[in-house]
Every structure is written in C-alpha cells, then in structure tokens.
C-alpha cells in the first residue's frame, strides 16, 4: 500500500507519459513514425529550453514571469539586426546581452530592493511588452531570405540539430544543478536562505547567478522561437507563458522531489509536446488541448502529493 503510493508519487509523470504514448500510438498510425516523433521533439524543444531557464530561477527560490516579455523583445532585436544586414553573430550577441541586462535588472530589484519576484517580474513583463510595441510599432518582423532555417532545423542523420542542442543543454544543466557544488548551493539558497547565510553562502550572489543563467537561456529560447517562426512575432511570448509555467510546475512533481529540477522540466515538456502533437494527428478539436493540459496539471500535482501532503508541496 505504502509502496504503491510512493511509487505513484515518484513516477506519476513517467506513468502519464507512457500511458498516453501507448494510447496515441494505437489510436494514430502516423504517431509512431520517425518523422512525427522528431516533429514532436522539435515541438517540445523551445518549451523545454525556456522551461529550463525558468527552473534555474525557481531552484534559486525565485520566479521570473518576465520571459513572456523579454522573448518577443529579444526576437524583434535579433530580427531587425539581421534584416538591416548585420552579421549573425552581432545579432546573436545583442540578443544575449539584452537577456543578461534584463535579468540583471530583475535580480537587482529582487535582491537589493527586496521586491517579491512574482510581482516585479510581471511588472517587467508588461514593461518589456510596451517597449516591444514602441520598438516594432506592433508589427511582426519577418526573416524570409535573411536567415537559413537549416542552421537550426537541418537534420544530422534523422535528428534535427535543435533536438541535439536540446539534449546538450539538458545534460549540461542536469550536471550543473544536480552534481556540482554550484547547483547544490543554488538549491540551498532557494530553499533556506537563512541557513545558507549562516553557512557562509551569500544568497544575493547565487540568486543573481540564477537569474543571469535563466536570462541567457531565455535569450536562446528567443532565438529558437524566432528561427522557428522565421520571424519575430507579437505572440511569441504570450503564447509561451502558460505552457512554460506548466512545464516548470509539473516538473516539480517528478521523482517525488517536490522541488524545481531540470529532468522534471524535460519530461513535462515532452508530455505537453506529445499532447499537442497527438491531438492534432487525431484531429481532436483545438479546444481539447488546453483542457487536457489543465487536467494533467491537476492530476500530476494531486498524485505527486498523495501520502506526503506536507512534504511535497508545489511552491512558487
């Protein structure tokens, strides 16, 4: 009995993933084709990478909603620089620099002015959306002819490059967060800043590092989403806000950890990507996707909390 509960609690997301995978592969003949599986992975990539960025900040005990504002803004900067004939590396570095700058400002608000990150990053999101409008005049900027999509989506064997990038980033971040002193300290600062201080760790340093790493990853996400759409679209951020939050929160339930973690985000992103993909293949109505996502979020959190209600709590 106890064993079952513990098992369910640890492997909820795995179980949902596998069950849905089996159902989808029976229900749709095309689902299991290599092409489609690769497509599914590509669909999970941007969600997963941006989710990694958010998880890094959540591990440090903060949250950052500003990515929904910073990603379209960075995309617009990247696209205009390319369309104005600047070299790729200039556009890429500018995107990264803006990402780091925004995250640094957020970290100052949170660590120095002691503002609550939830509210101050929502404020930052609106601020950046406003700047985006002022900068672009509300128009999408298309990259047709300025950018070769193969650079990102070209195949290496059967695997798209972006999927390899996803795997590499996952491995780096997994080791960084779970196997290095830095990752352990980041987590301590997030969980118990008071004890961290008495143990000689400076929470400000680690929280700032968390925001900056997150910001760099968001910049990568902005680049990928611009590449995917072949342009900087107004909707790039807002469409991403809730799925990324969902991935980060469902990710907390993986392995009964009850804390933000990188493998959890990977699984959750695959799960959400798969639902999107399969529902289209099965020709289910478009409104069924958000309904399924909402249900999965509730089920995952409920199952992960069985028997351990006061230990594993999903926290902001």
């Amino acid at each position, binding site marked *: 009995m106890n064993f079952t509960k513990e098992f369910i609690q640890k492997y909820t997301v795995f179980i949902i993933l596998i069950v849905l995978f089996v159902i989808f592969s029976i229900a749709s003949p095309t689902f299991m084709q290599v092409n489609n599986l690769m497509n599914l992975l590509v669909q999970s990539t941007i969600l997963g990478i941006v989710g990694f960025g958010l998880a890094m900040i959540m591990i440090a005990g903060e949250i950052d909603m500003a990515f929904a504002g910073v990603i379209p803004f960075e995309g617009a900067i990247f696209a205009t620089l390319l369309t104005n004939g600047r070299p790729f590396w200039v556009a890429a570095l500018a995107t990264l620099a803006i990402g780091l700058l925004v995250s640094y400002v957020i970290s100052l608000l949170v660590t120095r002015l002691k503002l609550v990150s939830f509210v101050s990053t929502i404020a930052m999101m609106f601020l950046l959306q406003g700047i985006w409008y002022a900068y672009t005049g509300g128009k999408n900027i298309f990259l047709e002819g300025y950018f070769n999509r193969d650079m990102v989506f070209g195949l290496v064997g059967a695997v798209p490059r972006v999927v390899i990038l996803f795997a590499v980033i996952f491995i780096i971040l997994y080791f960084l967060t779970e196997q290095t*002193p830095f990752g352990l300290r980041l987590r301590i600062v997030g969980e118990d800043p*008071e004890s961290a201080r*008495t143990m000689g760790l400076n929470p400000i340093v680690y929280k700032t590092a968390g925001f900056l790493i997150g910001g760099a990853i968001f910049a990568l996400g902005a680049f990928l989403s611009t590449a995917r759409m072949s342009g900087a679209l107004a909707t790039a951020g807002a469409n991403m806000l809730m799925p990324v939050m969902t991935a980060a929160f469902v990710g907390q339930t993986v392995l009964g950890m009850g*804390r933000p973690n990188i493998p959890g985000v990977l699984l959750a992103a695959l799960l959400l990507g798969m639902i999107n993909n399969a529902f289209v293949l099965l020709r289910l109505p478009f409104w069924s996707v958000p309904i399924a996502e909402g249900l999965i979020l509730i089920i995952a959190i409920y199952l992960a909390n069985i028997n351990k209600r006061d230990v594993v709590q999903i926290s902001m």
Partner: protein
Amino acid sequence: MLKEPEVTDLILEMKSIIKNFPGVQALQDVDLSIKKGEIHALVGQNGAGKSTLLKILSGFYHMDSGKVTLNGKDLRRWTPQQMIDWGVSFIYQELNLVQSLSVAQNIYIGREPKNPIGLINWNTMRAGAVEALARIGVTDLDVNTPVNQLTVAKQQLVAIARVLDMDPTVLILDEPTSRLGLEDAERLFEILKDMQEKGLSIIYVTHRLSNIYRLSDRITVLRDGKLIISADTNDLPASELVKHMVGQEVVDRSYGSKKDTEKVLLQVSGLFGNGVNGFDLQLHTSEVVGLLGAVGAGKTESVRLIFGIDPIDEGYIQVCGTEMENHTPTNAISAGMALCPEDRKYQGLLLENSISENVTLAGLKKFATWNLFPNKKKEKSIVFELVNRLRITTPKISTHARSLSGGNQQKVVLAKWLCTDSKVFLFDEPTIGVDVQGKAEIYQLLHELSDQGAGVLFVTSDIEEGLQVCDRVLVMFKGQIVAELDPRETNKEEASLYAMGGSPDELH
C-alpha cells in the same frame, strides 16, 4: 624583559564594542576575551545583548566602534564567510541545517569535495561525513538520511560534526541544550569537554545554571547591553551570578492584591502536547496570575494549547464551567476566553484596517442588526468609549492600526476582547516593545479587568514585571511548571533561579 602572559594565550578579544540600533543602544562598551582552550559561558537575560555581540562577531552586524583581535590579528570589517574561513564557527539555537538535504550534504555545504572536472564527489563526501560523525562518537547515523527525518538531538550532532570538521579554533554555541533531553545534553557536554582538551576554545551562551557550572571555566555576564562582570567560574557562586544577571533593583509591588477567589474560571489539569509536559492551572475570578519563564520554557505553547490553537495530547480544560471537549479557538471564545497573542502584529491585529474595524472584529455580532448589517452608529460609540477608556493615543478611530505605536497597538488588541463577553483573558507577552508609560497603562488595565471579576493569565519573560503585577506567579522551565510563588514572599533572584532550572539551595 617581562612578557604579559595573558596576552599570548588570548585567542579572541573583543574590546569596547559599541552598537546602536535606531533608538536603542544595544551594546555599550562591551569587552569579551577568550583564552585558548577554555569554555567561556556568556550569560545574561533576554535583551542583555548576547546575540547582538555574537552577530557582530559572526559578521551579520557591523559594530559602530570597538576593536576585535583574532589570533593576534586586528579585524576591521568582515563577512560571515570570512569569519568561518578564519576558524570561528557558530552553532545557532535553530541549528540552521537545510532540512531536505542529507546528513552528508549538510556537513559539506560550502566545501563540497570535487572531482577533477568540477562535479561533486559523492563518495568522498559520504565517507568524509561518516568520519566527521565518528570523530564525535556518532556511528549509528546513515549519512544519506535527509535531516528532516532526524530528531532534534541527532540534528544537533550533525551541526556539531559539520563545524568541527572545519577545524575551527573558536566554536560558539547558542543555548545548545534548549531542545535536548538530559541524556543527549550529557553526550553534548562530553563532546565539548573532549574538544576543549584538544585545544578548541568554546563560547557557550546559556541561561541554564547547571550547564554553566558543569562546563565553563570563565563567565561573562551582560545586562542591558553592558558588561557586568567577567570572572573565573570558581570565583563566582550561583547566588552572585544570578544577582549580576538580574540586577539589584528591588521589585516594586505597586498593585495591591484583592481576593475574591471562591469561583474557578479556568481549570487546566495534566496538560500535555507541543513540548508542554504537564501543566496545571486554576484561575479564579478577580485574579491576575503570572506565567513566568525564559524564552523557550513553553509558556506560549501552553497558552496555545489552552486556547485550542494546537492539538492537545492529553489533559482536561474547563472554561467558566464548560468542559472543552472539541477544543478549538472558536469554542474557547464562545466559552468566554480571550487571547492576546505574543506576536500581535501577525496574530492579533489587522494592520491595514482601522482601529474601529479591529476593535469590533471579535464582537461583530454585538454591533449587527439581525446578525447581518453592521450598526455603524452603535459601533462608533462603543469604539469611542473604549479608545478613551484605554487612553489609546490616535487622531481618529479610522486610523490604520499600522501607524500606531506598539503600546497603542496592544491596547487595540485589548479593546477588541473587551468588546466580547470574555471572562478569562490570556495575555501572552503584552508588554514587549511597549514603552514604560504604555506598560503601566497595560498593567492598570489588567487589574481593571480583574476588578470586574475576570481572570487574567499574564505571560511574561520579564520576571520583575511578573512579580510586580500579579497576585500569584507560576514559573515554567522546560515545558513544566517548576514553582508557584507568592510575589509578596519571594524576590526576583528566587524566581529567576527557578526559571533557569536551579533550586533554592543554590542561593545560600
């Protein structure tokens, strides 16, 4: 040439330390010197300045002026990390372990063993943790266990293993036995004595007499932010020590006692739970009973049990003749009990609401027409009367509670309960953060309540205040009532002695 022997064997010296906080001089010219290999007891009552002094040493606060010399080196300004690097380690009362991490991780946080590519070497970490624990004689602990699954005593051992593994030259422990049983405390003492023999200097902060005489070589006493005395333990008998700690002032009993105690309002017997080990109380009509004891003695816990906030393991509670079976705060209030909690800012007061809203909160029904619509006119007149009666200093009754002074906030909480028909009042530390004038008014009010036939339980860690105000006092130590005293026949020293776990023979 003559050498000064004391200078060479001093490892840490803090001289003329001054620290001011807005409106308070927390430390006035305090000295503390620690010799190599000694156990030095730092004692004083709450607010004496012990923790401020240690927070300066640890690097969390910066001193306004003074001189700190460590190992012959003058220090200017330092961070907590630097102090640890220089070999000064702290174990705080709340231990400060990261609850979800394992024993091994906690022991190695901040100095994790790494392999050549920078990843944590978990095997080295585990083996090192086993060794660190073995060094203090702990061999029965799985280092993979998350610390939140350990008892407090085991956690304490982990905290000690952690700091000793960093090879400190000075170790500071803040009231380390406050949450330990006798056996575990004994084990801790042995470890400390053992470390002392190996040359470690220990600063031991406590207000437990038995620990001071059991362990320490020298004692430094602080009171009201001033250095009172620093002496060898052998030259300072317990009676002297207590006098130094509490000061010499004579308790002024300004409130006469009146007796109309035939009726029991609150009856508590055999109460257990939440760290309280057997609590008995009979509170009569027109009686002010004091519940005294040091911080952590279990006073607030007892009050929370009596009011039904925390679940009771065992015990019987009767309020105004009603037995509390299903004990919740709602039942307690309807049976006629009122509680002014310790932390009035968070538990007793809605800071963003007006005085009048706060006052009428608990007795809302009284002010409502058909139990539904608030009767603003009635509300206003009653609030006005209370504000005047309690002398709450405020421009308007619509002023937000946040903008009032501590004393006035406390009075608003009192006014709230006066609006109800309560017969039994529990006051948990009502005078903390209140100025002298405000305190006097609160004392006055307690007695007005009791004159009207209410029973008042007055919880305070200020022993002088308790003896001054109450008709009868109970002294708690480690979750138990250890003495019942009549303020007219006792004195501050005797009461303080009980509160520190001493017995009266030690006074003579």
